[in-house]
């Protein structure tokens, strides 16, 4: 070690002119304040800026020159024998020279920067991040550049054909690293990407340090052998680092649904047993995994996780095809490629060739052959998947919910304010053959907002209006889905509240009425005739969790406060107007909200995605059978925080 220090001291002494240059450069920022140009600046700001620029330039310049001359120049000029003819080990030669080069690269810029920063005080600001991180980045960048320069210098000066192999390996690594990073990037694993990049940078520096030591030990004064030794050790270390990184990435991106514990989100297909499941697995950093999961068989297909977090994935009408939007590399962060995944088939994604903003409303025709989307610039497009071409593109002002009435007709619903406290649902149809949009109807109601859904056969729609603090004056309206012609209107009654109305498959309107904290299920026929009423119990609101064949409903009632007890879930006979039985109280995930407003058709044997405090499971409400899907625990990071972070 002492001989390494002797060599380092000698190397530094040989380059003492660098420090004299740095001292001279340290004065320049103060002289710069005397320039006429500097009048518009504060003296401190001017000194800080000039000092930073000079120090950065000096650091990078010294890194390039220092790296190139550390070993390569002396090898080429046959001067390395000066050390080898003396009783000094190869390690002392290498580490002495390396230490001297690193010291010069760091110390000389510090001579320029420190007086400027001391003078500038609080005035010193970097363009982003803190001062220390900027200094750290400059120091690390300089050391990296020093290493790169040393390698290039050795390779070029050796005049060996090995440089071709180095070039090929460098190109291969240049391709491999982005390919390795891409799945992480697609999974929004920003922290993991940062750590892997930092790890590879550290591995690069380590590879150069080990490679340099081996280069001097085995290559000594022989240029070609020196190159070969550096090359061999460098690529061995980098190869191991890349393999380890690749193995880590492969592990991070391959959790099973049962591994998911954090930031869980579930969306159910409107029909069938497939769900979207997204979230993070413990110890796999911030990678957001996504799955299309069949609750009946436990089979799953991996899909893009962040796409699910943003609810930009959707299922086809029958729940057998998933539409996923996956971020494209080298494009704006919001630009995505649209993939279709045949869930009942091999599960291999089919690239539709379509790119769309992840925020754009998008729907799939029932036959899975056509896609409609309205992009952020206001263009509505119908795209044909088999031929991979747009059939029609028209301007459309609103943000629609829509569905294909037939492969050639797209029905569009858009909500807007027509006047103060008046909401208007505009109904239009786009005919692909004529490329024209025709307004087919509209529906107006009082309120500050509306929600609507369409019956599974697309014939009727249910519009629910809300005013600030509660129901609108017409809390539920059943209308013709094409014309908006009213069929049934539920009027707000004094002393009661309507919560969670649902249009059932047979056209009956389910209206939960809350009066004095007591929920009553009311079933209305056409025109608003009350067909049946079923008292359910105390609660704040009620909703239909699932509709089963044979006029049976799964209805959940949520209490106003947790102090009033747990939610209650009932199996109701809608035709007979009675409670068949009370079910386990489980939290149920909602259906895929998507951009298709149609509800799912009644199921004979429904499987519902449900949650307890500790797990997510599939639940058959008729048999009570439960199957574990994923774990679940609350951690400090809320789902909103995750969304905020991903949005950033």
């Amino acid at each position: 070690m002492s001989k390494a220090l002797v060599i380092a001291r000698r190397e530094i002494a040989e380059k003492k002119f660098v420090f004299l240059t740095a001292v001279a450069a340290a004065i320049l920022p103060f002289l710069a304040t005397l320039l006429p140009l500097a009048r518009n600046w504060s003296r401190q700001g001017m000194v800080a800026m000039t000092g930073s620029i000079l120090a950065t330039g000096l650091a990078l310049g010294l890194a390039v020159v220092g790296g190139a001359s550390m070993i390569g120049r002396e090898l080429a000029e046959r001067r390395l024998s000066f050390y080898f003819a003396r009783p000094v080990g190869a390690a002392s030669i290498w580490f002495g020279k390396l230490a001297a080069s690193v010291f010069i690269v760091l110390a000389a810029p510090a001579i320029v920067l420190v007086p400027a920063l001391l003078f500038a005080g609080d005035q010193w600001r970097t363009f982003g991040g803190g001062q220390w991180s900027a200094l750290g980045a400059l120091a690390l960048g300089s050391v990296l550049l020093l290493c790169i320069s040393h390698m290039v210098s050795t390779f070029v000066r050796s005049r060996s054909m090995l440089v071709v192999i180095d070039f090929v390996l460098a190109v291969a690594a240049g391709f491999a690293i982005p390919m390795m990073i891409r799945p992480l990037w697609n999974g929004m694993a920003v922290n993991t990407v940062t750590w892997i990049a930092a790890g590879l940078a550290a591995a690069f520096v380590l590879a150069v340090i080990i490679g340099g030591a081996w280069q001097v030990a085995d290559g000594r004064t022989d240029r070609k052998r020196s190159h070969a030794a550096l090359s061999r050790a460098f690529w061995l270390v980098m190869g191991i680092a890349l393999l380890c990184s690749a193995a880590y990435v492969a592990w991070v991106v391959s959790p099973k649904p049962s591994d998911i514990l954090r930031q869980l989100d579930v969306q159910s297909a409107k029909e069938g047993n497939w769900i979207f499941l997204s979230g993070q697995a413990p110890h796999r950093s911030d990678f957001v995994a996504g799955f299309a999961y069949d609750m009946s068989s436990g089979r799953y297909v991996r899909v893009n996780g962040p796409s699910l977090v943003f609810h930009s994935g959707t299922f086809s009408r029958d729940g057998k095809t998933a539409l996923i939007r996956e971020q494209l590399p080298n494009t704006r962060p919001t630009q995505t490629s649209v993939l279709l995944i045949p869930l009942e088939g091999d599960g291999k994604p089919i690239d539709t060739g379509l790119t769309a903003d992840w925020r754009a409303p998008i729907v799939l025709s029932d036959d899975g052959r056509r896609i409609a989307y309205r992009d952020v610039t206001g263009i509505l497009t119908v795209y044909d998947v088999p031929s991979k071409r747009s059939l029609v593109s028209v301007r459309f002002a609103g943000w629609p919910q829509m569905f294909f009435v037939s492969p050639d007709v797209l029905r569009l619903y858009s909500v807007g304010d027509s006047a103060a406290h008046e909401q208007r649902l505009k109904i239009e149809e786009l005919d692909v053959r004529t490329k024209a949009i025709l307004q087919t109807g509209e529906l107006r109601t009082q309120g500050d907002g509306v929600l609507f859904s369409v019956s599974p056969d697309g014939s009727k729609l249910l519009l629910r209006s809300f005013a600030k603090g509660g129901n609108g004056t017409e809390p539920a309206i059943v209308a013709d889905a094409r014309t908006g012609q009213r069929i049934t209107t539920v009027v707000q009654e004094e002393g009661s509240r309507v919560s969670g109305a649902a249009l059932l498959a047979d056209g009956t309107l389910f209206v939960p009425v809350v009066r004095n904290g007591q929920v009553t299920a009311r079933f209305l026929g056409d025109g608003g005739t009350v067909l049946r009423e079923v008292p359910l119990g105390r609660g704040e609101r009620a909703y239909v969790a699932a509709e089963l064949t044979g006029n049976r409903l799964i209805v959940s009632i949520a209490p106003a406060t947790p102090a009033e007890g747990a939610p209650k879930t009932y199996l109701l006979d809608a035709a007979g107007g009675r409670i068949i039985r009370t079910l386990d109280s489980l939290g149920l995930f909602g259906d895929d909200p998507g951009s298709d407003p149609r509800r799912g058709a009644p199921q004979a044997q429904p499987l519902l995605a449900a949650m307890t405090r500790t797990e997510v499971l599939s639940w058959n409400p008729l048999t009570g059978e439960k199957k574990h899907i994923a774990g679940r625990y609350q951690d400090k990071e809320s789902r909103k925080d995750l969304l905020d972070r991903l949005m950033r």
Partner: protein
Amino acid sequence: MTTAETAIRISDLTVRYGRKTAVENATLTVDRGSVYALLGRNGAGKSSLVRCLVGQQKPTAGRIELFGEDVWKRRAALMERVGVVSEEADAPPEMRVAELARFGASLYSRWDQPAVDDRLRRFGIPSKAKYGDLSKGQKKQVSLALALAPSPDLVILDDPTLGLDVVARKALFEEVIAELADRGITVLLTTHDLAGVETIADRVAILRDGRLVLDEEMEALKSRFRRVRFASQPVAFGGGNLQTAAVRAWGAGTEAVVSNYDELAFERFRSASNIAAAEIAPLSLEEIFIAVTGEGAQS
């Protein structure tokens, strides 16, 4: 010869650069306390052999031992006992001579600074001078002064006279190397100054195209080489006991360099060939070298 008596042992040394062979199957030993001259024309492989000898280059094949230890594996330790003057001026040009001496002193366990100062004074080199500003010969002299400072047991001089003037060359051979020899220090040198080396070398080796074509004691070498001139008639040497290193026409007769001269054998050859008179003269090392390595040399 035992390891204790051997300073250098080179066994089957081969050095190749791609397809080119610089040294091929060279085997030699250098006794302790001897002065060994390694000669050869430019490109014969001397510098490659010396670089391997000081552990700076790994041979393609073969083994080199200094004082019984493998030089490739034990280079750093062995360099405590070896002073090296490289063919190239390899010291950092920005360093002053005094700085070079201080640097050397901090690396060796033994360092005779007064001897360095004395030699530099004799060479007329100021210690404040920058190494890069010195002439080629002065650089060699500084390297020599530094190489001798740790009182080495072996000194390896790779073309030490390169750039030296006539006076300095004479001083190098007659004062420095002779003094080392007197002190029992082993010296291996490569040089083109054959007149200088002739008086001090105990043993000589000649490399030709990477192959060691000669390796023997200086006295034995000189005693077996003779120039023979037959003025009156051409003479054919084939078939006799005399071996020739070179043969050429000389006036009406023949001139030959005989590499195994022996009076009795020559007399037999002369009477058998019916030759009346012959002129026989000893050869200088330079003449022997030319005969062995020159254009007309016979393998």
